C-alpha cells in the first residue's frame, strides 16, 4: 500500500466561539475535503472545572473526523503529540477498514478480525503511520485569554516537530493565529519541516474580545487548498492523493 499524504488542522483554543459561522459545520466541510480537524482545549493550570464552552471542542473534532482533548497547560506537549498521532492512526485505519470492507464484505472492521489477522493488519497500519507524509496546519486562538498560554503553546509545537521528524515520512507544518482584524487568520510560520527556532512567534496580537472560530477554520481550510494549488502549479506530482 502506498503511504499517502495526510492533512490535519490542529486547533488550539480555550473558549467558545462567539462570532461568524458554526465551526462544527466548517469542520464537517473540512472532513469532506480530506482534511482532518483536531481540537485541543487548553485550560489554565489553576482552573478547577471545565468551562461549559469547551463542550464545543468535542463537537468540532467529531465533525472533523479528528481527535479532541481538554488539557491543563502543563500537559500540553504530551497531548499535542498524542492527538496528532492518534488522528493519523485513525485516518489510516479508516482507509484500511474501507479496504477490508471491500475485500471481506459489509461491516468488517479491524476490531472484528480474529486476533491473528488483526495482528498483521495493525502492523501495516503502524508502517503507514511511520512512512506517510503529514501536513499539519496549526491554528492558534490568540485572543486575550490565551496570551499567557502562548509560550507553552510554542514549546509544545517545537516538541511536536521533534517527535514527528523522527519518523521516516516527511512533515510540513505551518502556524496561523486568529483573530486577525484584516484577514481573520494570520500566518505566523510559513510551511516548514522544523518548528524549532520560532522567534517572535506571537507578536502584535490583537486583543479583541471576539473568537471567530468558524470563520478562522474556514480560512485555514482555504489556506490548505491554496497550498495544494500552488504545489500542483509548481511541480506535477502524479502520486498525489487527496485525502490520504
Amino acid at each position, binding site marked *: 500500500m502506498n503511504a499517502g499524504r495526510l492533512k490535519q488542522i490542529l486547533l488550539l483554543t480555550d473558549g467558545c466561539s462567539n462570532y461568524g459561522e458554526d465551526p462544527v459545520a466548517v469542520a464537517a466541510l473540512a472532513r469532506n475535503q480530506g482534511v482532518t480537524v483536531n481540537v485541543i482545549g487548553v485550560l489554565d493550570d489553576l482552573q478547577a472545572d471545565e468551562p461549559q464552552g469547551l463542550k464545543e471542542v468535542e463537537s468540532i473534532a467529531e465533525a472533523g473526523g479528528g481527535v479532541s482533548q481538554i488539557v491543563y497547560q502543563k500537559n500540553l506537549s504530551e497531548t499535542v503529540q498524542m*492527538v496528532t498521532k492518534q488522528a493519523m492512526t485513525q485516518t489510516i485505519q479508516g482507509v484500511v477498514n474501507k479496504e477490508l470492507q471491500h475485500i471481506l464484505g459489509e461491516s468488517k472492521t479491524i*476490531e472484528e478480525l480474529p486476533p491473528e489477522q*488483526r*495482528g498483521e493488519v495493525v502492523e501495516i497500519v503502524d508502517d503507514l503511520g511511520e512512512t506517510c507524509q503529514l501536513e499539519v496546519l496549526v491554528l492558534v486562538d490568540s485572543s486575550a485569554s490565551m496570551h499567557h498560554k502562548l509560550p507553552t503553546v510554542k514549546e509544545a509545537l517545537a516538541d511536536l516537530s521533534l*517527535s*514527528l521528524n*523522527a519518523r*521516516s515520512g516527511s512533515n510540513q507544518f505551518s502556524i496561523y493565529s486568529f483573530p486577525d482584524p484584516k484577514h481573520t487568520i494570520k500566518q505566523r510560520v510559513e510551511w516548514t519541516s522544523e518548528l524549532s527556532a520560532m522567534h517572535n512567534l506571537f507578536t502584535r496580537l490583537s486583543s479583541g474580545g471576539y473568537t471567530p472560530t468558524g470563520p478562522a477554520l474556514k480560512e485555514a481550510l482555504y489556506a490548505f487548498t491554496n497550498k495544494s494549488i500552488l504545489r500542483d502549479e509548481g511541480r506535477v506530482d502524479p502520486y498525489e492523493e487527496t485525502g490520504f
Partner: protein
Amino acid sequence: MKKPVFNVTNGTLVRGKWNHHAYHVVKKLGEGACGAVYLCQKNGIMYALKVGTESSRLMLEVNMLKKFSKVQGVKLGPSFVDVDDWAASNGQTYPFYVMEYIKGDSFATFLRGKKKEWVGICAMQLLSDLEHLHQAGYVFGDLKTDNLLISDSKVQWIDVGGVTGIGRAIKEYTEFYDRGYWGYGSRKAEPGYDLFAVTMIMLETVYPQRFTAEKDPKKTLQDKLKRAPLPSEYKRVITACWQGKYHSAKEMKEALGQILMKRVQPPKQITRKSLHHEASEWGEMLGVSFIAVVFYGISAWNLWM
C-alpha cells in the same frame, strides 16, 4: 481518548471469545496508558492479563511480546501466553492478552538500604539486555523504572510495548527519561536513545521524586547531576553518555564495569599501602639529596683547584 470503563473486580471471569480460555482475576497489578494489568489464574497457574480498549495498540504490543520474549536465546521480557477478545457483561467487547507473571520488587524497593554499587550493577544488567536487543535491530524505547522489576537480583523487563525498530520514530516515551525532552538528541530509535534512559534511571535512584526541566533543560539536568549524591566515577560515565561518547550498550557497560572492578579493594589496605609508600619516598628523597650534595661538593672542589 476516554478512560477505559471495564468492570473487572477480584473473581471476575475473563473468557476469550476466540480461543475460549477462561481466566479468574485475582487482583489488579497496575494501570498503563492503554489498559490495566491484572493478576489472574487458570488451572492453578498465575498469569498477568492486560485488558485495554484500544485494540490496535494492544495488538502491536502482542506482536512485540511474541517477538521479544526471546531474542537470540536470551529471555528479554515476559513470555507470551494468549491473545483474545472478552465480551464483558456490560455488552462491550474488550481486547486482552495474557503473559507470564513475573514476581519481583520494584527498582526503588530493591535498592532501599543497599550500597551505591548496586546502582552500577543494575545499570550493567540493563545494558547487557539492551546489547542483545540492539543487536537484534530494536531499541526498548520507553525505558523507565515502571517497566522494570527486580526478580532474584536480576533486572527484568515487564512491558515491551515501547520496543521500536531501529531507524523509526520512538513509539512511546516518558518525558523524564526522554533525551528529546532534555535537549540531548532526537526521538529516533537508536541505541543511544536507550543509553540516555539508563543514565536517567541511575539519577532517579537519588531523585526518587524525579524532576522537570526548567527554562534551559540541559542546564537543569547538569545541575541535578552535579548535586546528585552519586559516586563521582558514575557521574563521569553519565556525562560521557550525554556527550555521545558511547556508541553501544557494550561500551557503556565496559566503562561501568571498570569502575565496579576497581572498587573491590577494601579501603583500609589502601591507606596502609599509601603510608608505606610515603615513607619509602621520604628515604628516596634523602638519598638523592645526599648524592646531589656530594656531587656539588666534588664539582666545587674541582673548580677551586
